[in-house]
């Protein structure tokens, strides 16, 4: 059967975000501009980064995303995330390795509501006619400098965003325990462009990404999307295969 990840998140629970409960309210984030770059990485560099419950994507790849949220319940903010391509059972997922938000408030809320492993820092989203750029720095050090080169219009239906999985501590069955949380945003596309990914600076350690080395670019997109960050619906045992260890917390959204 397929390979499994080797990361045991129960061995270092203090490093995980902690949720007060699993009753996170949904957020509506209208007209966000989302730069997303997909890049293949050597399989050996992803060893140990994926929880035991999940399957690695073959070939290994990461998703770098820099997003400008002009409106949110905590005001405007920019967000950069790094996800590792993977599978939760039969479903494609991006396991969240690291994230940076441009405001302390956004970082605190995203960490506490959805278990995103996030810090505050400087996140810039810049659009030019020949490229869309994202830069991230923390403590005066640039940890990501990337771009989508030569963006060309495509249909929103051509773009597929996969759902996220985070690792966090949260109360369940009367005790706070480490678990995997499915975050499945709903997107409504207004505009989509596609181009070539370019990464000038990527500090893997700053993204909790071990020794990941970026290798072969796949594709880059930049989309204008309404994003609904949903209520938490599914959590997963971090050590059991997902098809055995998934629990539904609440019913699916009414629009599904």
């Amino acid at each position, binding site marked *: *059967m397929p390979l499994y990840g080797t990361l045991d998140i129960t061995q270092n629970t203090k490093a995980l975000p902690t949720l007060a409960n699993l009753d996170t309210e949904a957020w509506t984030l209208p007209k966000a501009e989302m730069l997303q770059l997909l890049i293949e990485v050597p399989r050996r560099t992803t060893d140990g980064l994926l929880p035991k419950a999940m399957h690695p994507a073959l*070939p290994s790849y990461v998703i770098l995303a820099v997003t400008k949220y002009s409106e949110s319940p905590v005001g405007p903010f920019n967000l950069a995330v790094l996800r590792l391509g993977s599978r939760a059972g039969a479903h494609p997922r991006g396991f969240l390795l690291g994230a940076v938000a441009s405001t302390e408030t956004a970082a605190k809320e995203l960490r506490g509501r959805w278990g995103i492993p996030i810090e505050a820092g400087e996140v810039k989203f810049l659009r030019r006619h020949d490229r869309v750029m994202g830069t991230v720095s923390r403590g005066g050090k640039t940890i990501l400098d990337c771009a989508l080169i030569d963006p060309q219009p495509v249909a929103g239906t*051509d773009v597929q965003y996969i759902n996220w999985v985070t690792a966090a501590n949260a109360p369940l069955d009367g005790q706070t325990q480490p678990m995997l949380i499915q975050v499945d945003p709903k997107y409504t596309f207004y505009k989509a462009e596609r181009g070539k990914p370019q990464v000038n600076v990527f500090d893997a350690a700053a993204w909790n990404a071990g020794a990941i080395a970026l290798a072969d670019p796949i594709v880059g997109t930049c989309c204008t999307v309404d994003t609904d960050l949903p209520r938490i619906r599914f959590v997963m045992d971090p050590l059991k295969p997902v098809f055995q260890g998934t629990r539904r917390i609440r019913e699916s959204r009414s629009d599904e």
Partner: protein
Amino acid sequence: MKFGLFYEISIPRPWTPEKERTVYNNCLEQVKLADELGFDHVWAVEHHFLEEYSHCSAPELFLTACAMITKNIQVGHGIVVCVPEFNHPIKIAERTATLDILSGGRLHVGTGRSATWTELGGFRANPDSTKKSWDEFVRCLPKMWMQETFSYQGEFWSMPERTILPKPYQKPHPPMWVAVTSPGTEIDAADRGLGSLGLSFAGFDEQEKKISEYRRRIKSCEPVGAFVNEQVATTNFLFCHEDEKTGVEMGKKLGNTFNYLATQLISTREVFSSPSYQSLGLLPALRRAATGPDANEQQTEGMAYGDPARIIRAVKKWESLGVDCINFILDANEVVPQDQVMASLKLFAKEVMPVFAQGAAAKGSPAKVAAE
């Protein structure tokens, strides 16, 4: 109704040399038996880099081996990837003609364009252009087989005038097919006069719509070859057992294992945004079915597992929808022991095939009909 075998050649880890050899030998043993039992086809995929799911990257070699140990069963590429980074069209024409000669005119040539990023990215092929390159290839192949000399200047490849050798044994040429997974490909097949080689496990309603549209469109097609190959094949799992419960349980295990492996593949659409890959192909249906290797839920309707009576009901339903041929996957990751695969084939041939024998015998080969 015709019946065939369909091979992905799925091999579980760890991949020891003996295990790969054993699985290949098991497949050959099944094909030899199927030939003796009267099955019509054996198809083999072309896949690359798809760990455990398919180790069938050189189907022309496997199919040649099949042809060498059998007498009547027809051998089919299901499919040859018609993307220049994978296969040069001259080599496709040469290899297929050679296989047709070696098999004594038993070759079918399925065509397609690959659906996974794992493969397209591995060959550094551009997903945007695979439909167009496939279209060029399928229009060139019949001419390369039939014309004494051939030259070509296209968007994806070109060649000066040469004689492509050898020529196929079948005249005018082997029957041509296209893999149909994405919605709309059945129209591509019909418009070009190609057989529809269904590789999905969609339910009755969806297949009925596809087949109906295919039959309607092919009436006014402009065939890329010398004849119209109006045939609809579909894929299924086979496990036939005297006891219905045992048959269903093993069939579900086979189906769940195959589906779970298939859903691990990185579909092109999942990572590469392209108008050429708007659909996920067969994956959504598989994901719905593949809740895990231990799942025991109702699977897609029409599966050919259980006792002979249950399988006959399923096949009759497919027949009523207009399916001409069902190709069976017999195993995945070796979850069905070889002796049980062989027993299942024998029981199917004894109890199920005779029920459907008359129609198949009357139809004959499209290539032979065209030649006559």
